[in-house]
């Protein structure tokens, strides 16, 4: 396996460079230790100081995010963030990226991504109640992409389905740029009784450190380091073992941990999952957070493979493992509890006084380093930033589409994989287990009830990478705004967000510019909507052969719907209902689905976006929902008004008859901050009084056709046939 080098060999052969430690960093490690690090210690620092664990390139940017608020019980820094929702209950959520593992082995990569995010949620003491995903793939004209999509979906589905956690929503887009670097983000939402809140801290000298769950193998060693360096075809062959998920083991582990937390919290000091950089990161972080030292005896770590060395034991990313700090005296009780779930619990060490992180193996001390140096003293870099050439050199003009036959264009739009019905994906997920799912695709955000209360949660994942590619700053604002728009259109009040920042290499100034601008835009939007960032994840180096993906900040937002009467869905409800549009439409088509469809790519400066206006529109919609005036609401996104109207019709069995004073191309414009709403005719007076001139009547619900008249052309299609082809388009392209 791995050859162990002496400290001087490591120095002389510069082994640390291969592990992603720079010359400067190596010097810092020497200073922190007052000597040369040995083989194991070098490995510990390489993992803990990687981008994945230390955020050394993104920390200065993440600092901008608002993270506090009266409703926030826990911001970033723990397994997941926590938001108070009243009555002693809280909602817990976080998202995680698993892009690289998914590219290598899509089934297991996606499955273990889901498994990992679930552990983050139950480690906080919460019961997971919903999963969501955000997926970006290459174009479907390629056999490998079809295989990736199929296996990714299978992996996500099989893990969540087996755990009994419903996958209630998500998003999927397709674009050549993701061909070699698919994006796989998963989000988990949990429900917490506030008294059960846990922390990942290991305090109290003599308290026991318990390893629970699956045995350690050589899976994913260097995963954290890999995830933080660029892909090149050369590395492909060196990559070490893939992690295999075992959802059954995780289900047992989850039930055991929740029983421990909910019924025997007196046994427990702290709990954390073993995620990226496995045992080293969980144990060192638990010690650092509590301000204690720790001693672990690695001989006691349950091992699946033979002759593992300390480096491997510490860095393995074997799945379905947790680390507990157990109060002295309760060891037998904890072991018995886990035995009941046929899950292993083994004491591997204890909390010590001071600041030393010490490991012994076969009776020999193999590491002795200051905890704080490992956890808190990773260097932070301010990378140079430069506006991407494609932005600075773009022609300052709006795309002028040619629409020869409006109906044909409309039907072609509905078949675009990004727009087409996603049944071929979400029907492979159990969206209903736990019997709390009120709506998945019938609303802009998924709706999950909180049993025993009147409250429901609305949740959504959004990113529109094309907009970010054209303008990362406004694109960042839009990502948060779109998420909020989905929550608001469903009747919810946005509470907070989680995010996954999927970007290219921070060492490339153009990619770093994108990261910097996107986070700036997101920050401003989060502040305005009062949706602090309570958790998240950074995935950089998403590039192959120097080609980065589009900047892809996934925003996962959760909102609260206090009154069941406010739950609002997108489907047309009744023949004769009046259809209104809220918000301005102009012929701005850069970055739009139409541009993508016609040119095969997007270009030009992004359309104007006004965050204040967005907020006003959302407030207006909330007022209308709270006044119980609306029969349906739907936000307009990809494909603009034409697609939005079709979606409302498809969700019901009712057509529409719409007349607008827009041009045919404007039907596909993607101006933000717009909604289509419907009302019963007898509410027209009070509705119009409420909206003043901020909504325009455009037509009526009814019939078996979708009719949309513009200034220059009309769409007039049979609802049933059009729906069939929209519904079948994705399944057909996946085949």
């Amino acid at each position, binding site marked *: 396996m791995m050859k162990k080098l002496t400290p001087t060999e490591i120095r002389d052969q510069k082994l640390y460079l291969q592990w992603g430690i720079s010359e400067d960093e190596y010097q810092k490690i020497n200073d922190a230790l007052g000597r040369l690090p040995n083989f194991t210690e070098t490995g510990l620092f390489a993992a803990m100081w990687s981008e994945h664990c230390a955020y050394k390139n993104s920390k200065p940017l993440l600092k901008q995010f608002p993270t506090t608020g009266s409703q926030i019980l826990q911001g970033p820094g723990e397994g997941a963030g926590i938001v108070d929702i009243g009555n002693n209950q809280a909602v817990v959520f976080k998202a995680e990226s698993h892009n690289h593992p998914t590219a290598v082995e899509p089934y297991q990569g996606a499955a273990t991504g889901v498994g990992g995010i679930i552990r983050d949620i139950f480690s906080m003491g919460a019961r997971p109640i919903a999963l969501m995903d955000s997926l970006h793939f290459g174009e479907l004209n390629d056999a490998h992409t079809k295989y990736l999509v199929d296996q990714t979906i299978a992996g996500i589905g099989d893990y969540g389905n087996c755990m009994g956690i419903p996958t209630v929503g998500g998003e999927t887009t397709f674009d050549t740029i993701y061909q070699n670097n698919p994006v796989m983000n998963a989000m988990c939402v949990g429900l917490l009784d506030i008294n059960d809140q846990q922390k990942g801290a290991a305090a109290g000298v003599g308290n026991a450190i318990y390893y629970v769950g699956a045995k350690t193998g050589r*899976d994913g060693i260097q995963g954290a380091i890999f995830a933080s360096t660029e892909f090149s075809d050369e590395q492909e062959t060196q990559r070490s*073992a*893939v992690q*295999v*998920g*075992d959802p*059954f083991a995780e289900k047992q582990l989850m039930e055991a941990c929740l029983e421990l937390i909910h019924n025997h919290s007196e046994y427990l000091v702290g709990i954390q999952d073993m995620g990226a950089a496995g045992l080293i990161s969980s144990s060192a972080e638990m010690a650092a957070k509590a301000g204690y030292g720790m001693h672990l005896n690695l001989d006691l770590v349950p091992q699946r*493979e033979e002759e593992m060395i300390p480096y491997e034991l510490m860095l393995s990313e074997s799945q379905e493992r947790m680390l507990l700090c157990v109060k002295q005296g309760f060891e037998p009780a904890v072991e018995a509890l886990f035995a009941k779930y*046929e899950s292993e619990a083994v004491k591997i060490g204890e909390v010590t006084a001071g600041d030393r992180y010490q490991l012994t193996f076969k009776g020999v001390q193999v590491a002795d380093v200051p905890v704080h140096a490992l956890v808190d003293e990773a260097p932070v870099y301010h990378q140079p930033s430069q506006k991407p050439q494609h932005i600075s050199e773009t022609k300052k003009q709006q795309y002028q589409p040619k629409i020869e036959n409006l109906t044909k264009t409309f039907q072609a739009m509905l078949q675009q994989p990004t727009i087409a019905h996603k049944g071929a994906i979400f029907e492979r997920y159990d969206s209903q287990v736990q019997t709390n799912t009120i709506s998945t695709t019938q609303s802009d955000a998924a709706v999950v009830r909180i049993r025993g209360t009147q409250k429901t949660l609305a949740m959504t994942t959004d990113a529109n990478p094309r907009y970010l590619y054209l303008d990362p700053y406004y694109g960042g604002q839009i990502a948060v705004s779109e998420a909020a728009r989905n929550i608001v259109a469903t009747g919810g009040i946005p509470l907070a967000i989680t995010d996954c920042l999927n970007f290219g290499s921070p060492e490339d100034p153009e990619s770093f510019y994108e990261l910097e601008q996107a986070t700036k835009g997101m920050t401003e939007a989060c502040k305005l909507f009062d949706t602090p960032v309570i958790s998240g994840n950074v995935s950089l180096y998403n590039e192959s052969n120097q080609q980065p993906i589009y900047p892809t900040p996934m925003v996962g937002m959760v909102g609260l719907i206090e009154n069941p009467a406010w739950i609002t869905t997108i489907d047309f409800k009744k023949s004769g209902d009046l259809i209104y549009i809220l918000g301005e439409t102009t012929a701005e088509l850069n970055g739009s689905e139409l541009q993508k469809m016609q040119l095969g790519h997007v270009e030009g400066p992004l359309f104007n976006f006004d965050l204040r206006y967005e907020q006003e529109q959302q407030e207006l919609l909330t007022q209308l929902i709270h006044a119980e005036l609306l029969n349906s609401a739907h936000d307009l996104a990809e494909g603009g008004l034409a697609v939005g109207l079709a979606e409302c019709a498809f969700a019901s069995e009712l057509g529409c008859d719409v007349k607008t004073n827009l041009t045919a191309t404007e039907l596909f414009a993607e101006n933000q901050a717009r909604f289509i709403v419907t009302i019963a005719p007898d509410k027209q007076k009070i509705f119009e009084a409420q909206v003043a001139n901020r909504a325009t009547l455009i037509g009526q619900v009814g019939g078996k056709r979708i009719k949309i008249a513009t200034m220059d052309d009309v769409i007039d299609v049979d609802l049933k046939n059009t729906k069939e082809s929209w519904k079948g388009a994705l399944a057909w392209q996946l085949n």
Partner: protein
Amino acid sequence: MYNAKIYVTYKESILDPQGEAIKTALHRLNYENVKAVTVGKYFEIKIEDHGQNIEEQVRKMSDELLANINMETYRFEISRIEED
């Protein structure tokens, strides 16, 4: 016509949750003398003789589709069978 039998299993180092579950179940059924269980996939493929290098063809199929060489290994046997 050829008949290729291909056996795909996880690489040694990779967790095999199915194998573990089955081992536990066999122990529970009192087969305590079962020491290890590995689960894999088994393919039987009938291939027409087009004068190709059959070994190479089966190896390529396995690399491309039947196994994921990032985590699985395979072995195969090929036999000639009578046309019917």
